[in-house]
């Protein structure tokens, strides 16, 4: 017997665990909200979360409301690694196996919370740390962080007569984290949901510190329309600017190959934060060349260029575009 059922009904009836509910106050198309949902869904209900100050914290928990269905605590901006470490130590003392997750923005991870993170990694706490990398301090109104890409415009790295946006390079956080020789460190992107799920599941199974840096497009901070988030995030991967890699005990273990490498301008052009690079100006042309060189360097050191068709490459990997029906 067959029954007709609406897709929306089906979704409602699906007994799938959700760690983050709808109704939160993220901007339309926010990468962080989607990543948080994917990560908690893959991690399952036997977790507790320590969340750094930042957009994710703010938009999910305006008192007296909360969008979380997992035990969740926000303490401060820069101590998430340490709070998570304390939670893990307590669970260990009590003989419980609940996994501790730590969530931080790029600011809370690369910059101000870096010391607490490093301590947590060095001491080997059994915590999965997820960095929501939207490449600036979004919560305070788009200021540069050490994750902001070279030449990007933020409110504290504005272009002008003397400057072409951010002067410095994006910090290579995953390598720095991996240099702690933790069991598992990886990058992922919200453009590849099943890659996120796979990596979360992998990290959940590991006893020890694990780290996942997820590229998290931000329509407000990057300057594009909210319905373009996935497309923009995909371009970051397809151009080689955001390599998707896995590192085990500090060594490169796998990469997501690029079936077709696109020029960086395809990615940069989609966003207002790079608009000063698309004027007829020598400095702008030089910066574009510089950014292309950065992408080329990534492709070379990580050997990103794919060879032929691969179900797990940048085009074959399950994406919203291909599997839209499944994840809608």
């Amino acid at each position, binding site marked *: 017997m067959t029954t007709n059922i609406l897709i929306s009904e089906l979704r409602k009836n699906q007994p799938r665990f959700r760690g983050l509910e709808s109704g939160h106050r993220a901007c339309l198309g926010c990468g962080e909200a989607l990543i948080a949902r994917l990560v908690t869904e893959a991690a399952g209900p036997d977790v507790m979360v320590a969340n750094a100050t930042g957009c994710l914290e703010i938009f999910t928990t*305006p*008192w007296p409301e909360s969008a979380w269905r997992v035990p969740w605590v926000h*303490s401060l901006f820069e101590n998430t690694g340490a709070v998570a470490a*304390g939670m893990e130590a*307590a669970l260990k*003392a009590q003989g419980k196996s609940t996994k501790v997750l730590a969530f931080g923005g790029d600011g809370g991870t690369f910059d101000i919370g870096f*010391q*607490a993170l490093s301590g947590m990694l060095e001491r080997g706490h059994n915590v999965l740390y997820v960095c929501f990398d939207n490449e600036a301090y979004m919560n305070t109104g788009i200021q540069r962080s050490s994750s902001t890409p070279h030449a990007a415009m933020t409110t504290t790295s504005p272009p002008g007569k003397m400057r072409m946006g951010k002067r410095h390079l994006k910090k290579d956080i995953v390598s720095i984290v991996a240099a702690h020789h933790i069991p598992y460190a990886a990058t992922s992107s919200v453009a590849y949901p099943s890659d996120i799920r796979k990596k979360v599941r992998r990290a959940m199974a590991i006893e020890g510190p694990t780290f996942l840096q997820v590229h998290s497009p931000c329509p407000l901070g990057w300057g594009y329309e909210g319905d373009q988030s996935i497309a923009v995030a995909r371009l970051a991967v397809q151009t080689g600017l955001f390599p998707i890699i896995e590192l085990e005990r500090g060594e490169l273990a796998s990469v997501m190959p690029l079936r077709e490498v696109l020029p960086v301008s395809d990615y940069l052009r989609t966003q207002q934060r790079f608009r000063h690079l698309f004027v007829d100006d020598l400095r702008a042309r030089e910066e574009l060349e510089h950014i292309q060189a950065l992408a080329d360097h990534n492709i070379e050191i990580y050997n990103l260029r794919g060879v032929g068709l691969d179900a797990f490459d940048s085009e074959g990997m399950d994406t919203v575009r291909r599997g839209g029906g499944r994840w809608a």
Partner: protein
Amino acid sequence: MLEALEGSQAVAKAVALCRPQVIAAYPITPQTHIVENISKLVADGKLQCEFISVESEFSAASVVLGAALAGSRAYTASASQGILLMGEVLFNIAGMRVPIVMTCANRAVSSPLSIWNDQQDSMAVRDAGWIQLYCSDNQEAVDSTIQAFRIAERSELPVMVCMDGFTLTHTMEGIEIPTQQQVDAFLPPYKFSRSLVPNNPISLGTLVSPEFFSEARYSHHKALLNAEAEIVSADRDWAALTGRRCGGLLSVEGPEQSKVAILTIGSVLGTLREALRELPSGQPVKLISLRSFRPFPVDALKVACKGLDDVIVLERAFSPGSGGIVGLEVLGALSELANPPRVHNFAAGLGGRDIPLEILPKLLAVLSDPGDGRFRVIDVDLSKLPVEDR
């Protein structure tokens, strides 16, 4: 059983008797002996707990916060620069109303750098929303540490047990260490009403709009005021069990008919006690030892000072550009009395400067020559300063 122990060693034993499950700390003089002793107890298998040697005091405070939220009894200890580095977390712990116990081995704050004792560190964080108990000797440090866990867990507030660095932490005394049975009878296993558990997920530390913020702050204030009762009852119950008390909110000693009292906070009490014993008879003086600085025991203080003509407040820290910290609060509290005593306010013993017995006549001299009545640092040698700074 009476044991000859260094203050730090005794506190470490007291902490262990409380069966903490998570301890996190970072070394700083004069707190180091406490955490070293605890580490040894853990290494020898005498204390079963997760001991986390963190990379900073900021993380020490954050680790114990996470641990207490995840359902474990947690302890840390620090001093001076460490307390200030913890500053942001201290406010956060208290605002979330998480029961944690910390020992502050009181030390001066840089600059100028000093590793020696005063109480500028704990005084600097007096507004963090923690209960603060000050110890006048090492027996009190032991007993207050054990009481602190009960007070913290019953009132759902963090407690800072303040003991003077070196004067107490590094001094040997004969100390009565309670038995495990006594402590177990006094302190039930840790239970926190807002623990994080997967089958009952709650969100803590959320963003609060102006619509709710005043209420949150008010309820925190109220919780601290209400904690007075827990501090008193913990001391009373502990006395019933061990025969020893720490003075509840404050303690008063000396002749009933005294018209003068000296109010102190911390270990200087011992010095004054001895100095008074040697004082030629004639001047009856009471000694008031303030144990609870937060909550500030206004009512108990009013009772203690009723009928006095003069209260001399001697403290080991001050607020530059204003004056005494304890003194100002005493003045405020006593102003509620119908005939308030005069309050004279001195700081002494800063950055480890010795407070000798001869301080007593200097303090009492204020009775015949009150000067302008303003706060004074009592033991400044102006000849050491350039003329323009005198």
